[in-house]
């Protein structure tokens, strides 16, 4: 009931800005992030739709990764980071004291820049999340989750005969898909991807991009990328960050074809960044 009241209050107070509130998976309101004295994110407002790929683009150091890490409170693990403002997931403030960041991260999965499989078997990598969250009743259910997750990550055919082998022995692209399978296995609602292809070759990148498009059917995907072409290829919505501010946010097509802000246009045409 409390949470419901909270949600109502917020949607009431911000009804003007929240269009189609029911579609918004994540809503950020005047978010500021500080690393010590460094003001890394300045007053960012953004609404992220469910079942959509949203891309964050911008030059290095513009704060897009920092903002992404706010969405599952990964910044909590950094001592000097401080987050202000509200970030709502399904209308619920994730920085509320009652929210357990550990539970939150099970709902908001994350894939990192460099593939980081655990030095365990492929099976154990994927089963890691379901095991710690107790998502299964028995071994056969766990087997099913592992298989479904690997299938979703388009890795099942390559991995099904070597589930007992170490995940670190795979190629870079396979490792990254394994990490996606691992994130998918906890059955999150949102999938955050922090430059997931920057350590991969073009073929592996193409595979991951294809995969991201498929993941859109089940998840809300937020991807940080350095590559504007990638943003154009995979996303439906794009947010452009510059020097800690979110300059422009809208449909990907519009951002790339008729940006409103001068800075966005300069970045897209390659004059800054």
């Amino acid at each position, binding site marked *: 009931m409390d949470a419901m009241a909270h949600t109502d209050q917020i949607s009431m107070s911000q009804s003007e800005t929240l269009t189609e509130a029911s579609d918004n998976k994540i809503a950020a309101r005047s978010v500021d992030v500080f690393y010590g004295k460094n003001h890394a994110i300045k007053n960012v407002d953004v609404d992220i739709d469910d079942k959509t790929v949203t891309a964050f683009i911008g030059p290095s150091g513009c704060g897009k990764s920092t903002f992404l890490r706010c969405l*599952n409170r*990964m910044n909590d*693990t950094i*001592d000097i980071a401080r987050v202000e403002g509200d970030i709502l997931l399904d209308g619920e403030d994730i920085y509320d004291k009652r929210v357990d960041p*550990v*539970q*939150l*991260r*099970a*709902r908001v*999965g*994350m*894939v*990192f820049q*460099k593939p*980081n*499989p*655990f*030095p*365990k078997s492929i099976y154990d990598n994927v089963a*890691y*999340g379901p095991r*710690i*969250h107790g998502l299964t009743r028995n071994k056969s259910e766990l087997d099913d989750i592992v298989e479904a997750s690997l299938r979703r990550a388009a890795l099942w055919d390559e991995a099904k005969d070597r589930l007992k082998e170490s995940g*670190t022995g795979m190629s870079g692209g396979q490792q990254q898909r394994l*990490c996606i399978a*691992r*994130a998918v296995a*906890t059955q999150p609602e949102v999938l955050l991807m922090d430059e997931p292809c920057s350590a991969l070759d073009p073929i592996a990148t193409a595979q991951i991009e294809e995969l991201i498009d498929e993941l859109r059917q089940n998840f809300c995907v937020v991807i940080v990328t350095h590559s504007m072409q990638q943003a154009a290829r995979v996303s439906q919505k794009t947010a452009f960050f510059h020097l800690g501010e979110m300059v422009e946010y809208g449909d990907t097509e519009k951002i790339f074809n008729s940006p409103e802000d001068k800075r966005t246009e300069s970045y897209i045409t390659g004059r800054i960044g």
Partner: protein
Amino acid sequence: MSFGTLFLAVIAIAAVAFALSRRKVLGLAQGDRRRLHSLPHYHGMHAMLLAAVPALLLLFGWTVLQPVVVDRVAVSHFSGEKYDTSGERSLAMSEVRRVAESIDALVRGGKLGTSELETLSDEDLGRELDDTGIPVLSDLPPQIIDSARIYRSVSATGDLIKLGLVLLLALAGAAYGYSAAHPDLRARNRTEMGVRGLLVAAACVAIFTTFGIVLSLLFNTIEFFRIYPAGEFFFSLTWSPSFGGGSELGIIPLLWGTLYISLIALLVAVPLGLFSAIYLAEYAHPKFRSAAKPLLEVLTGIPTIVYGLFALLIVGPALSSVFGRGGMGWMPSDTAVITAGLVMGIMLIPFVSSLSDDVINAVPQAMRDGSYGLGATKSETVRKVIVPAALPGIVGAILLAASRAIGETMIVVLGAGAAARMSLNPFEAMTTVTAKIVSQLTGDADFASPEALVAFALGMTLFIVTLGLNIVALAIVRRYREQYE
């Protein structure tokens, strides 16, 4: 000229060569060091190395080899059945050396002129030596005195030749270095070669010394097995050396004591060390960590004899008051396996924690992020990701600690007692291989007896055990390193 003076003389020649060559090239380049191939001090160094290195090598080599050659010459003057065996000969040789030294003392004291010495008959010389009160055999066989004279004269000649050759070589090197000094000389590259040679030599000394230690252990062990059956040494369950002979020297009770005490030490050190490492690496605030880690490492700086005192005076009596006669009645005396094991465990904590802390820190941050990103808590991350990833390194750390425990002596000598016993009761006194090596060699046994030589066999066994552990540990640690680089 003594060794030290000669050494200093060579150094002085080299220093002069340095200064002169440096000045020469600067002069040739009209003081403009841009015209030189190498910086001036490289030219100086080049001449210095040429002067010093060959001369010093000759000096060291000659000094080591001369006594061997002189001995051989002097020994060749013995004859007759009396000096047939090598033992007899070496006994006579030490007598010769003593007589020669005594004559030296006489000459140095001014009681005997050099010319007098030449004319003095053997009998008179013997009497003269007796008068000085220097302990020499009263009825010196003429062969000994004869040999002593030869010994002295050969040594003197050798010293003279050494002096000449070394100085000559130093001067020749200096002269060549000086004459070669030229602005175009690639002195920098040549000096580099010299430096490389120096480093190789240093490495060789370390390696050959280790080799020498192992060989001496090996030969003495073989000597021991010649007079004592190896089967009994390895399989007998009794250790009761008696210096009168007829001792039983079975290693098993000692090995048992060693392993038992090490086991208890590891049972203390591994959990405490590992947990503190995990706390320091994962939970502690960086400021706390940077203060606490050095503090923990201070424990490694405490001499083991201090730990031994701690065991003897504090831990032993404390345990005894609980488990001893006043309490449970299990512990007959203060010294026991448990006393030594506990104290040794405390000694090992920093070994385990410091190395484990390093390997835990070497686990990439990406692993932690990956685990936290999936909603794992800190302890789940530690248990399921970090410790398994760091496990090879942690095992390496534990094995290194184990080989320390096995080789530890002072804590055992003071804390564990001296009785070689095989028992499962940790409150009994037992002893270890190392403690027995000490007691076998500190007695006044004949050095050739099995009771003394057994120390070498014990040392060799211990060496092989710890070497094996170290090799396994290093192999594990190395494999671990490859994983993340």
